[in-house]
C-alpha cells in the first residue's frame, strides 16, 4: 500500500486523471454552450431568411410596380410631348403653307424680274424643306398633312416630292405611266417620297444621281427610288423594317439625337393611308432601292386639270355668267372672259389663239350667214357699243391693247 502511496507515478496518474476529468467537464460545458449558441443562431438564421424572402418579394413587387409606373409615366410624357408638339407643329405647318402661297403669288407677281424671281425661288426651296419637316413631325405626333382637292399625276407627285428636299437637282424622274393619285393621297405619297429621296441623297455621293422610276404593276403603281450610295447596314435595315411595318409603334423620343424621322414618317403615313413602303432591296447602282406601292384604291385615271386647258363647258358657263365680257374679237379667236390675272381668256376655233390675226382671217370672219337678218346685225352692233363702253370704263389699258 505504502508502495502505492509512495509511488510518484500513481500521484501523477491521479493528477492527470483529475485534470482530464476537469478538462472533459469543461469541454462538455463549452460544447453545451456552443450547441445552445448554435441553436440560437440557427433559429435566428431561419428568422432572418424569412425576413429576407419577405423583403425580396416586397422588392420584386415594388420593382414590377416601378417598371409599370415608369412605362405609364413614359407613355404619359410621350403623349403629352406629342400633343404639345402636334399643336406647335400645326401652327408652323399652317405658317409654312401660308408662306408658300405668298411665295407662289410673289413669284407670279415678280415673274418678269429675273433676279427677284431667282431669289424668290431660293426662298421657296428652303420654305418647302421647312414645310416638309413640319409635316413629318406633325404626322408622327398624330397630326394631319392637309388635303389637296385635286388629284395629281404620279409624275407631278414625284416632282413635288423632289422639290421638298435639299439636293433636288440630283433627282431624275422617269415616268412610263399616265396615272393620277387621288386628292386625299397626293400629299401623303409626296411626303413619303420626299423622305425617301432625302435619305437617298443624304447617304450617297454628293454628285451621284438619284432616280425615280414610276411603273404600273397589276395591283397599282410603284414609285421606285434608286440611289448609288453605300447601302444600309443590317442594323439600319432592321430598324427601318420595324418602323415601316404597319404595326410599328413610334416612340418619338427614341428616334435619336438628331432625330431620324424619315422612316417613322413613312411607316406612319403608309399605314394611315393604305399604301406600302419597303427599303429592303438593293439598287442596281449599289445603293438602296426604296419602293412605294400605291394600291389601285388610291389611283384614278381621271387626268388632273392642267392650268392651260379648261374644258369648253366651263367657258360656256363663263360666258353666260358675264355677258358683258363677251366682246367678240376679230378673227377666229373668241375672247370669252378674263383670267384672274386680267388676261383675256380665249376659246380656240381650229387653229386660233392668235393675238394678231392674219389679215385674211379678219376679212373671212363675217360670213354670209351673219347678214341673215337685221336683228342679228343690230345685236352685234349693240355688243360692239357695249364693248367700246366697257373699254372706256375699264382702267385696264393693257387689256384693250392686247385685244
Amino acid at each position, binding site marked *: 500500500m505504502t508502495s502505492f502511496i509512495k509511488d510518484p507515478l500513481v500521484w501523477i496518474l491521479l493528477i492527470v486523471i483529475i485534470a482530464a476529468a476537469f478538462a472533459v467537464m469543461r469541454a462538455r460545458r463549452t460544447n453545451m454552450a456552443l450547441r445552445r449558441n448554435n441553436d440560437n443562431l440557427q433559429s435566428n438564421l431561419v428568422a432572418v431568411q424569412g425576413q429576407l424572402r419577405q423583403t425580396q418579394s416586397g422588392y420584386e413587387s415594388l420593382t414590377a410596380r416601378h417598371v409599370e409606373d415608369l412605362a405609364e409615366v413614359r407613355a404619359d410624357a410621350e403623349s403629352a410631348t406629342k400633343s404639345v408638339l402636334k399643336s406647335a407643329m400645326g401652327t408652323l405647318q399652317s405658317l409654312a403653307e401660308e408662306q408658300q402661297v405668298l*411665295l407662289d403669288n410673289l413669284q407670279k407677281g415678280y*415673274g418678269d*424680274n429675273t433676279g427677284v424671281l*431667282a431669289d424668290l425661288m431660293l426662298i421657296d426651296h428652303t420654305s418647302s424643306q421647312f414645310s416638309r419637316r413640319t409635316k413629318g413631325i406633325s404626322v408622327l405626333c398624330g397630326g*394631319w398633312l392637309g388635303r389637296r382637292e385635286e388629284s395629281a399625276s404620279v*409624275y407631278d407627285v414625284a416632282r413635288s416630292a423632289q422639290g421638298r428636299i435639299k439636293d433636288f437637282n440630283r433627282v431624275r424622274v422617269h415616268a412610263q405611266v399616265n396615272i393620277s393619285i387621288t386628292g386625299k393621297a397626293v400629299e401623303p405619297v409626296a411626303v413619303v417620297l420626299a423622305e425617301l429621296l432625302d435619305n437617298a441623297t443624304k447617304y450617297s455621293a454628293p454628285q451621284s444621281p438619284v432616280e425615280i422610276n414610276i411603273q404600273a404593276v397589276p395591283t397599282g403603281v410603284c414609285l421606285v427610288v434608286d440611289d448609288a450610295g453605300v447601302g444600309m447596314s443590317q442594323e439600319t435595315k432592321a430598324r427601318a423594317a420595324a418602323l415601316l411595318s404597319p404595326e410599328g409603334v413610334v416612340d418619338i423620343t427614341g428616334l435619336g439625337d438628331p432625330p431620324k424621322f424619315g422612316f417613322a414618317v413613312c411607316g406612319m403615313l403608309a399605314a394611315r393611308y393604305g399604301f406600302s413602303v419597303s427599303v429592303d432591296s438593293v439598287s442596281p447602282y449599289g445603293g438602296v432601292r426604296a419602293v412605294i406601292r400605291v394600291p389601285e384604291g388610291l389611283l384614278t385615271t381621271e387626268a388632273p386639270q392642267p*392650268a*392651260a386647258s379648261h374644258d369648253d363647258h366651263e367657258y360656256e358657263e363663263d360666258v353666260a355668267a358675264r355677258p358683258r365680257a363677251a366682246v367678240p374679237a376679230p378673227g377666229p379667236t373668241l375672247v370669252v372672259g378674263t383670267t384672274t390675272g386680267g388676261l383675256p381668256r380665249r376659246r380656240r376655233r381650229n387653229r386660233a389663239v392668235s393675238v394678231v390675226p392674219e389679215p385674211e382671217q379678219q376679212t373671212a370672219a363675217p360670213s354670209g350667214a351673219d347678214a341673215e337678218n337685221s336683228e342679228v346685225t343690230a345685236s352685234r352692233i349693240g355688243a360692239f*357699243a357695249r364693248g367700246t363702253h366697257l373699254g372706256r370704263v375699264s382702267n385696264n389699258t393693257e387689256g384693250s391693247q392686247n385685244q
Partner: protein
Amino acid sequence: MTSHGEEAPVTSDFVRSYVITGGRRLPSADDLALHTLVTLAPDREMPLGAGPEVRAIWELCAGGYLSVAEVAGHLSLPVGVARLLLTDLFEQGHLLRRAAPPRAQLADRATLEKVLHGLETLIV
C-alpha cells in the same frame, strides 16, 4: 382612323417652280420680252419626254401667235419660268417669235365720240 374632315385644305402650288426649271439659270428678260409673240414652227414633233408644261405650251402655241405674258398666264407660271421653257423650245427650233405689233394709231377723240353717239342712237 380619324375622318378627313379634320384636314385643312392645302392650296399652294403642288409642283414648285424651281423644280420645273430644274434649278437652272433663268434667261434674261431681254431675250423674250413680255409682249414678244411666239408660235409653234410648222411641222414640228414634240420633243420626247416633254414635261406637262412643255406639252401645255405646245398646245397653246399651236393655235397662233401668243405673247409670252399670255403663255405664262395660261400656264399659271411665273413669267421667268415660262420664258425659260419658251427659250428652250426656241433654241431647239420648235418656236417662232416676232416682236409685238406696233401700237395702234389712235383716232382722235372727237371722231370716236361721234361714232359712239351714232351707234348709241342706232341701238336706242
